[in-house]
C-alpha cells in the first residue's frame, strides 16, 4: 500500500483546481473579443480543471477506502466495519465531501457542454465557459476556506471513525443524492447559456435551442432524484409516508417547479418567438432556486430532519445569492428592449394561454412553499420566535393549486395552438370529461363499500373559517383527483388516437403503425403527454393517502391480528441474524387471505455496533396495486417473544412509483435524438453522444433503482413506532412537536425519543383526568412557545405567512388574464395580405414540399 500524505495532496489538488478554473475564467473572458486561440485555451483549461477535480474525488475516495482517519471528514462519516460501497457513498454523506462531489459533477457537465458544442455558437461559448468556470471556482473557494474535506485533526487521529449515520447506510443513498445533485448541478449549464445570451444580446431562439438538451437532462435527473428521495423516505425513514414537506425536500422541489414552468414556456418561444423576457427570467430563477436550496440545506439555518450541520457556509451562499440576483436582474432590465417577442397571443382559448396558466400555477405553488419554508427564519427575525409549518399545513394549502395544475395537464393537450373555437374546445373536452364523470359516479357509488369513499373527513389545521375552507377542500380532494386523473388519461389517449387517425387517413397506414410513427416523429410532444399521464398516476397515489388506516397489536407467537377488512397477519416468532456491523432481530409474520398464506413479511430491529443505544427499526412492505401493507416492529421482548406490531395500510402508493417511472420514460422518449436532424446539421454522431450518454445514465439509475427495490423490502426507522390509543389521541399528538432539541420537526405522534415518550405519557394522564385537547395545546404553547406547534395558529404574522402568498397567487390569475388579453389585442392585428406573385408561389410550393418532407421523415 502506498503511503501518501493524503491531506496535503488533497489540499494541493483543490488549490490547483482553483488556479485552473480562475485561469479558464480569465481566458474565456479574454476570448470574448474573438481571440480564437484564447477560446481554445479556455476550452482546454476547463478540461484541465475537470481532471484536477476528478483527481480530488479519487484522493478522497482513497482516503475513505484506506481508513485515513487523519481527515476529519473521513473520521466523521466512516468506520472500519463499513463495506466498500458505503465507504464510497460516504463521499457525499456529509457537507464537505458533497461539495467536492457537487463540483465534480459540475465539471462533468461543463466538460460535456464544451465537448458537445465544439466549434459552434462562438459568440456565446466564451461567456458560457466563463460563467461555468466561475461557478466551479466559487465551490472550490468554499471548500478551501470553509468546508475542506481534506482538513485534519490537530492531535493524534482516532483509531476508528464515528461511522456513517445508519439511516444513510441504505441502497437508496447510493443513488438518490447523485441523481439529485445531477439534477441540481445540471441547471448551471442553461443558466450560463442564458447569461451569455443576455451579455451578448443574442436573445433569439439560439439560446433556447442550445439550452434545451441540458434543460431536459437536468429536469429528468431532478425528477428522478425527487422520486428516489420519496422512495428513500418511504422505505428508510419508516413513518409510512413519502413526502413530509421538510425544508430539504422543499429545497429540491422549488427548482423543479420553476424548471417545469420553463420547460413549457420555452416551447412557446421556440414555436412562436414569444415570452422572451419570461423565459429568461424563469431560467435565471431556476438556477437561483438551486443555489437557494443549497443554501437552505447547508446553512443549517432552518431545522430539518436531514440537513447538514449549521455552519458559516451559509454566509458564502447568501453573498453568492445576492450577487446572482443583482447580476441577473440587471442584465434582464438592460436587455428589455431586445426581449420583445415577434408574436403575441391571438386568443385566450389557445395552448399558449394554457401554458401561461400552467406557469402561474407552478409559480404559485413555488411561492407558497417558499414562504412556508422560510417562515421560521422570517418569524425569528421579525419577532424573535420561530414557527414550524407541519406537513398538514402544506398539504391543505397547496392541494387546491395541485388539483388545478392536474386539470391543466389534461386540458393543455386538447387545446389548439394559436386560436381555438368555443365549439372546438367543447368537442375536444367532451370525451375526457365524460370519462372523468363516469369514474366519479362509480367512485361515489362503490367507494364507500371498498373503504375508499369519494369524500372524507379531514382535521382542520386552523380553528378559523380558513381552516374550514382548507379542510373542506381536502375532504373532497379524493373525488376531484379521481376526476382529474381520468380526465388527463382520457385526454392524452384521445390526442394519441387523433394523431394516429389523421396519419392513417393521410398515409393509408394501419392504425398501430400510424400510432407508432406519429408518436415517434413528434417525440417531444408525445413524450410530454406520457409525462402527463405519469404525473396523473402519481396523483392517484397521492390521493390514496386520504384512505390510510393504521393498526397496532401486541402479539405472541401464533397469534393473529386484523388490519382492515382484507388483511390478517399471523405472528410466527422472532429470528436473529448477525453481520460484522450489526445484530438484526426479525419478527416473521404471515399475511393471510382467508386461510391461505399469501406472503411473509419480516420487520426488524437493527442494533448497530457503532450505536447500540439507538437501534433502528426496519419496516417490511408488501406492495400491491390496490394498497401497500407497511409493517413495523415497534418493540420485541426476546424472553417472552412478545412483539408489538404496527401495520399501516397505504392505498395506491405503488401508483406513485409507477407514475414516476412512466414520467421518466416519457421524458427519455422526448429526449431521444433525431439522427436525421443531426445529420442535416452536419454534426455527425458527436451531437448524439451526450444525449445518448444521458439516456444511458438515466436508464442505469432506473435499473439500479429497480434492482435495489427487488433486493429487499425493508429499511430502518427513526420515527413511527409509537403506540397510539385512538384517532383523537393521534390528532392531538400530531399537533405538538417534540421539544427535546434533537428531533427537528417531529410531531409527538411519530417521534420515538425518550422525551416524546414521557410527554405522551403526561398528556395521556391529563386527558384521563378530563383536560380538553385545546387546553393541552394552549399550555404546551405557553410552555415551549409557538414553535412547539405543528401548525401555528391562524393569527397575526402567522396568518400573513400563508395568506399573503396564497392571496397573491390567486390574484395573480387576474394578472395572467390581463396579460393574455393585452397580448391578444396586439396579436389580433390582421395579417397583411401579401400580393400574389410568382416568387411567392414558388416559395409557397417549397413550404409545402418541406412540410411534406417533415411529416415523412421527421
Amino acid at each position, binding site marked *: 500500500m502506498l503511503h501518501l500524505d493524503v491531506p496535503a495532496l488533497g489540499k494541493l489538488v483543490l488549490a490547483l483546481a482553483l488556479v*485552473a478554473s480562475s485561469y479558464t475564467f480569465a481566458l474565456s473572458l479574454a476570448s470574448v473579443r474573438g481571440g480564437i486561440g484564447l477560446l481554445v485555451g479556455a476550452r482546454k483549461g476547463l478540461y484541465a480543471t475537470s481532471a484536477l477535480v476528478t483527481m480530488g474525488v479519487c484522493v478522497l475516495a482513497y482516503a475513505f477506502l484506506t481508513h485515513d482517519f487523519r481527515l476529519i471528514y473521513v473520521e466523521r462519516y466512516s468506520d472500519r466495519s463499513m463495506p466498500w460501497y458505503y465507504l464510497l457513498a460516504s463521499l457525499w454523506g456529509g457537507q464537505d465531501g458533497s461539495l467536492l462531489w457537487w463540483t465534480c459533477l459540475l465539471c462533468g457537465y461543463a466538460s460535456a457542454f464544451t465537448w458537445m458544442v465544439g466549434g459552434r455558437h462562438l459568440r456565446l461559448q466564451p461567456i458560457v465557459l466563463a460563467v461555468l468556470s466561475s461557478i466551479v471556482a466559487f465551490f472550490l473557494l468554499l471548500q478551501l476556506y470553509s468546508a475542506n474535506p481534506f482538513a485534519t485533526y490537530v492531535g493524534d487521529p482516532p483509531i476508528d471513525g464515528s461511522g456513517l449515520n445508519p439511516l444513510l447506510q441504505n441502497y437508496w443513498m447510493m443513488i438518490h443524492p447523485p441523481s439529485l445533485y445531477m439534477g441540481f448541478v445540471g441547471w448551471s449549464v442553461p443558466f450560463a447559456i442564458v447569461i451569455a445570451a443576455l451579455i451578448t444580446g443574442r436573445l433569439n431562439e439560439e439560446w433556447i435551442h442550445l439550452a434545451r438538451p441540458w434543460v431536459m437532462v437536468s429536469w429528468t435527473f431532478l425528477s428522478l432524484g425527487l422520486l428516489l428521495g420519496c422512495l428513500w423516505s418511504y422505505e428508510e425513514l419508516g413513518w409510512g409516508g413519502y413526502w413530509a414537506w421538510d425544508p430539504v425536500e422543499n429545497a429540491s422541489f422549488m427548482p423543479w417547479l420553476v424548471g417545469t414552468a420553463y420547460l413549457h414556456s420555452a416551447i412557446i418561444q421556440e414555436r412562436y418567438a414569444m415570452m422572451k423576457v419570461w423565459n429568461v427570467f424563469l431560467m435565471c430563477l431556476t438556477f437561483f432556486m438551486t443555489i437557494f436550496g443549497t443554501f437552505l440545506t447547508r446553512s443549517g439555518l432552518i431545522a430539518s430532519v436531514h440537513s447538514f450541520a449549521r455552519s458559516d457556509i451559509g454566509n458564502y451562499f447568501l453573498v453568492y445569492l445576492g450577487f446572482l440576483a443583482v447580476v441577473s436582474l440587471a442584465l434582464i432590465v438592460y436587455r428589455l428592449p431586445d426581449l420583445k417577442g415577434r408574436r403575441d397571443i391571438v386568443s385566450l382559448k389557445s395552448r399558449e394561454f394554457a401554458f401561461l396558466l400552467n406557469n402561474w400555477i407552478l409559480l404559485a405553488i413555488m411561492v407558497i412553499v417558499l414562504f412556508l419554508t422560510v417562515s421560521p427564519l422570517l418569524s425569528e427575525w421579525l419577532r424573535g420566535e420561530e414557527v414550524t409549518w407541519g406537513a398538514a399545513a402544506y398539504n391543505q394549502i397547496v392541494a387546491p393549486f395541485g388539483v388545478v395544475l392536474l386539470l391543466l395537464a389534461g386540458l393543455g393537450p386538447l387545446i389548439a395552438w394559436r386560436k381555438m373555437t368555443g365549439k372546438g374546445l367543447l368537442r375536444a373536452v367532451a370525451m375526457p370529461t365524460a370519462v372523468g364523470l363516469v369514474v366519479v359516479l362509480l367512485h361515489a357509488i362503490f367507494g364507500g363499500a371498498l373503504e375508499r369513499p369519494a369524500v372524507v373527513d379531514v382535521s382542520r389545521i386552523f380553528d378559523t373559517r380558513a381552516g374550514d375552507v382548507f379542510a373542506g377542500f381536502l375532504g373532497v380532494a379524493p373525488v376531484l383527483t379521481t376526476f382529474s386523473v381520468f380526465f388527463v388519461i382520457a385526454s392524452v389517449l384521445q390526442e394519441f388516437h387523433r394523431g394516429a387517425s389523421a396519419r392513417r387517413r393521410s398515409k393509408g397506414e394501419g392504425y398501430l403503425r400510424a400510432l407508432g410513427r406519429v408518436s415517434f416523429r413528434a417525440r417531444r410532444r408525445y413524450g410530454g403527454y406520457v409525462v402527463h399521464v405519469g404525473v396523473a398516476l402519481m396523483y392517484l397515489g397521492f390521493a390514496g393517502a386520504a384512505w390510510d388506516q393504521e393498526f397496532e397489536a401486541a402479539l405472541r407467537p401464533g397469534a393473529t391480528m386484523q388490519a382492515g377488512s382484507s388483511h390478517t397477519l399471523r405472528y410466527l416468532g422472532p429470528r436473529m441474524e448477525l453481520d460484522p456491523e450489526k445484530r438484526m432481530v426479525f419478527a416473521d409474520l404471515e399475511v393471510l387471505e382467508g386461510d391461505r398464506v399469501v406472503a411473509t413479511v419480516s420487520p426488524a430491529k437493527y442494533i448497530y455496533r457503532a450505536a447500540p443505544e439507538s437501534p433502528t427499526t426496519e419496516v417490511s412492505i408488501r406492495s400491491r396495486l390496490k394498497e401497500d401493507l407497511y409493517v413495523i416492529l415497534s418493540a420485541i421482548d426476546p424472553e417472552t417473544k412478545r412483539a408489538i406490531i404496527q401495520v399501516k395500510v397505504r392505498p395506491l402508493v405503488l401508483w406513485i412509483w409507477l407514475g414516476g417511472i412512466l414520467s421518466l420514460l416519457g421524458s427519455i422518449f422526448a429526449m431521444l435524438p433525431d439522427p436525421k436532424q443531426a445529420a442535416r446539421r452536419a454534426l455527425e454522431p458527436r451531437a448524439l453522444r451526450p444525449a445518448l450518454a444521458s439516456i444511458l445514465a438515466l436508464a442505469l439509475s432506473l435499473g439500479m433503482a429497480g434492482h435495489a427495490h427487488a433486493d429487499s423490502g425493508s429499511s430502518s426507522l427513526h420515527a413511527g413506532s409509537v403506540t397510539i390509543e385512538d384517532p383523537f389521541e393521534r390528532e392531538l399528538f400530531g399537533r405538538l412537536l417534540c421539544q427535546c432539541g434533537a428531533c427537528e420537526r417531529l410531531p409527538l405522534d411519530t417521534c420515538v425519543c425518550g422525551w416524546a415518550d414521557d410527554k405522551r405519557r403526561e398528556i395521556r394522564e391529563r386527558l384521563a383526568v378530563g383536560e380538553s385537547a385545546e387546553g393541552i395545546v394552549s399550555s404546551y404553547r405557553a410552555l415551549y412557545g409557538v414553535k412547539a406547534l405543528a401548525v401555528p395558529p391562524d393569527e397575526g404574522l402567522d396568518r400573513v405567512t400563508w395568506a399573503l402568498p396564497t392571496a397573491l397567487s390567486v390574484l395573480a390569475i387576474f394578472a395572467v388574464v390581463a396579460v393574455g388579453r393585452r397580448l391578444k389585442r396586439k396579436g389580433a392585428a390582421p395579417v397583411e395580405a401579401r400580393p400574389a406573385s410568382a416568387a411567392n408561389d414558388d416559395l409557397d410550393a417549397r413550404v409545402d414540399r418541406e412540410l411534406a418532407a417533415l411529416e415523412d421523415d421527421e
Partner: protein
Amino acid sequence: MTATLPTFFIVFAGLSLAVALVFFFQSLHAVLTHAAVGDGLEEDGSVKRSELLDRKRALLESLRDLRQDHDAKKMDDEDFAGLEEAIRAELRDVLRAIDERVERKRDAIEALVRGEKR
C-alpha cells in the same frame, strides 16, 4: 475488491493528473501560439445559417401543428386561413434569407475557385 479499490483510485488519480497536465500544456500552447483552430471550430457566419434552419424547422412544426389542430376541427376555417398565412409569410422570409445566404456563399466560393485556378 476491497484490497484493489484503493489502488484503482490512486491510479485513476494519477491518470487524472496526467490528463490535467496534458490539457494545461495544450491550453498554454494554444494561447501562446494563437493556434489555428484545431478542434473543428467553424467560422462564425455558419451560426447564422443554423439559426435560419432552426427557425425554418420551428415554423414548419408550427404549421404542421396548426394543420393537425384544424384537421381535428379545433379551429374554424377562417381562423386557420389567417394564422396559416401569418406563419407562411414568416417562412417565406426565412427561405428568402437562406437563399440570399447561399447566393452570397456561391459568389465567394466561385471567386475562391477562380483564384485557385489562376
